[in-house]
């Protein structure tokens, strides 16, 4: 179990170096805090939503005034008589979306509340290119409606029974990207111990023992995985404090984040294997981590980027991780809906570690 010894040693080197540990944890945390403060809680901007109430019952009016109007702070409502005027306003950008409450809405809700079968159809129209808003609107309305009717409704993108909370804010949309960013910037830090060992030649000393390349790689990366798990938990906790609401499975979200971290650590191992010093390794990885972060859509949606950029970003795990984690967190989708992205991450993680091990064994004896 040589890798286990190397792992515990790396772990000790990390947690007994408070400055380094502080940096490793504090740096990504700072981003999370900044974004949480900027987008979380009270300061979330409000969206104006148009309402066309074709039902005009007590129930539907209650839904509009109490739920959409009062309960959800981020939404303001305006009533319209017909869809044409609403569409006009949407095009002008005066409203972010409009909802049509169909005739019979109230009846259906009452029916469902009494435990009978029912079918509620909400018709939401929004500007498709306004991805940021559309994610918000859908998840907000979705959650609110379901709570109101105490069921799942057709506009649900996925039919998972979920925990409903009404104070959904922009943080839901932002948080997954920021968490992925926090995990992406493990690339520059995860090679740290290996590079320091290279620089002060402690690695050379260990290379005179019968330790195999994979054992070195496993030892170095496992200590970073521990750190990554701590980071993810802190991220999720902070996100929750800022009002992030994980609609889907928290375990699935955690797994996506963990896989992302493992990919970052793997890239870190590749870079560290190729570099001679800590400086060289860190500069090299910052140089491509930042552009990769932007291309992967962690800050802003990558929808508007030229397709060649998106294709390029899609070669790396992070855009997939952003998509998948956003889907789980804001829309509550399950494994079926994100399996493509999920297994892409799994494959990528395996591949990058194989490459890292090969490179390490090539460069360890020059």
């Amino acid at each position, binding site marked *: *179990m*040589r890798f286990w*010894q*190397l792992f515990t*040693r790396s772990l*000790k*080197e990390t947690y*007994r*170096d408070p400055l380094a540990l502080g940096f490793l944890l504090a740096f990504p945390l700072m981003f999370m805090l900044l974004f949480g403060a900027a987008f979380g809680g009270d300061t979330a901007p409000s969206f104006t939503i148009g309402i066309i109430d074709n039902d005009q019952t007590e129930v539907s009016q209650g839904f509009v005034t109490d739920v959409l109007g009062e309960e959800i702070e981020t939404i303001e409502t305006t009533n319209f008589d017909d869809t044409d005027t609403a569409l006009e306003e949407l095009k002008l950008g005066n409203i972010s979306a409009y909802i049509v409450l169909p005739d019979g809405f109230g009846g259906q809700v009452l029916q469902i509340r009494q435990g009978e079968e029912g079918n509620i159809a909400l018709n939401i129209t929004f500007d498709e290119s306004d991805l940021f808003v559309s994610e918000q609107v859908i998840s907000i309305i979705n959650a609110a409606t379901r709570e109101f009717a105490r069921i799942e409704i057709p506009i649900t993108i996925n039919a998972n029974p979920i925990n409903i909370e009404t104070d959904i804010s922009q943080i839901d949309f932002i948080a997954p990207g920021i968490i992925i960013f926090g995990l992406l910037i493990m690339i520059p830090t995860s090679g740290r111990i290996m590079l320091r060992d290279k620089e*002060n*030649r*402690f690695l*050379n*000393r*260990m*290379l*005179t*023992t*019968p*330790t*195999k390349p994979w054992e070195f790689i496993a030892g170095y990366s496992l200590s970073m995985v521990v750190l990554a798990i701590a980071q993810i938990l802190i991220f999720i906790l902070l996100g929750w404090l800022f009002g992030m609401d994980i609609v889907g499975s928290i375990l699935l979200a955690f797994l996506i984040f963990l896989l992302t971290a493992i990919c970052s650590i793997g890239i870190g191992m590749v870079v560290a294997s190729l570099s001679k010093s800590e400086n060289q390794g860190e500069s090299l990885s910052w140089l491509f981590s930042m552009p990769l972060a932007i291309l992967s859509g962690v800050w802003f949606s990558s929808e508007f980027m030229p397709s060649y950029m998106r294709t390029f970003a899609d070669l790396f795990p992070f855009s997939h991780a952003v998509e998948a984690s956003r889907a789980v967190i804001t829309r509550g989708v399950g494994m079926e809906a994100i399996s493509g992205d999920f297994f892409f991450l799994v494959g990528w993680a395996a591949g990058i570690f194989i490459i890292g091990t090969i490179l390490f064994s090539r460069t360890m*004896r*020059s």
Partner: protein
Amino acid sequence: MVTKVTRSSVEPNDIPAIQTSNLTKLFGSLVAVDGINLEIKKGELFAFLGPNGAGKTTTISMLSCLLKPTSGTATIMGYDINKEPYKIKQIIGVSPQETTLSEHLNSMENLALVGYLHSIEPNKLKAWSKLMLETMGLTDRAKDQVRKLSGGMKRRLSIAMALIHNPQIIFLDEPTLGLDPQARRAVWDYISRLKGDKTILLTTHYMEEADILADRIGIIDEGRIAALGTSLELKADTIETHTMVVYAWNLTQKVIMELRNRYEKIEISNGTMTLSDKKLDFKDIIDRLHAAGTVVRSAYIKEPTLEDAFLKITGKELRT
């Protein structure tokens, strides 16, 4: 998981512990090690003596499978460094030239790490570590993170890490570099105790160290072995000229001229006359000086030292 090193029992017992054949390393166009051929017997303590940049560390790095030779090869206990590096790594212990430790671990943990990487059983390892720390005088500070230790302590621990797993073959690259005389003595004592039991290849640029410790010395210069032999052999073989030092008053030009005619080389400075030649007649010289009215205060024949041998062989002073 204990990996026992097994070698076929039919192997003759007299294979050399270390054998190099035309071992060569180039860094770009710089020839760091230039076709070294060497045989070190089991249980022998062999010292590489040479100035900085001679190629000592590069040779050790190749033998401990850290560097690939540019050409040529070597075997350690019959295993080829190019073909069976992991077999070799199981039986060697290396103390690198630089003191390298895991800085945030304590002494005990550093020793344990190397021990575990060599698959030593925990019980044995614990006992050996305790013993080793005692030997190296580190017991008091065993639980301190090593970054807090003094340079000398770190150095001793670094050497201990090469020995903790009880390896058959030991490479010590400048083991006493930077140690104070007292600590140096302690390390020498310890190394002497290992003599005969282990095969040790040690590099040094301290004459005294090679002289005291080594069974055989290889003088290495510019990547080549310039001379090889025991300390006595090296001195005897290379120093054909003998030297006599006379401290005297009233040296006259006349007697100097007289001696100059008889002996190859005479130097005078501050009343000290140094004569050297292949043959020196002590009595003849003293008699002649007396006859010339010179007062001889002292006179002696200087024994050749390893340093003289080294100077003669390489044409370089070996100063630290």
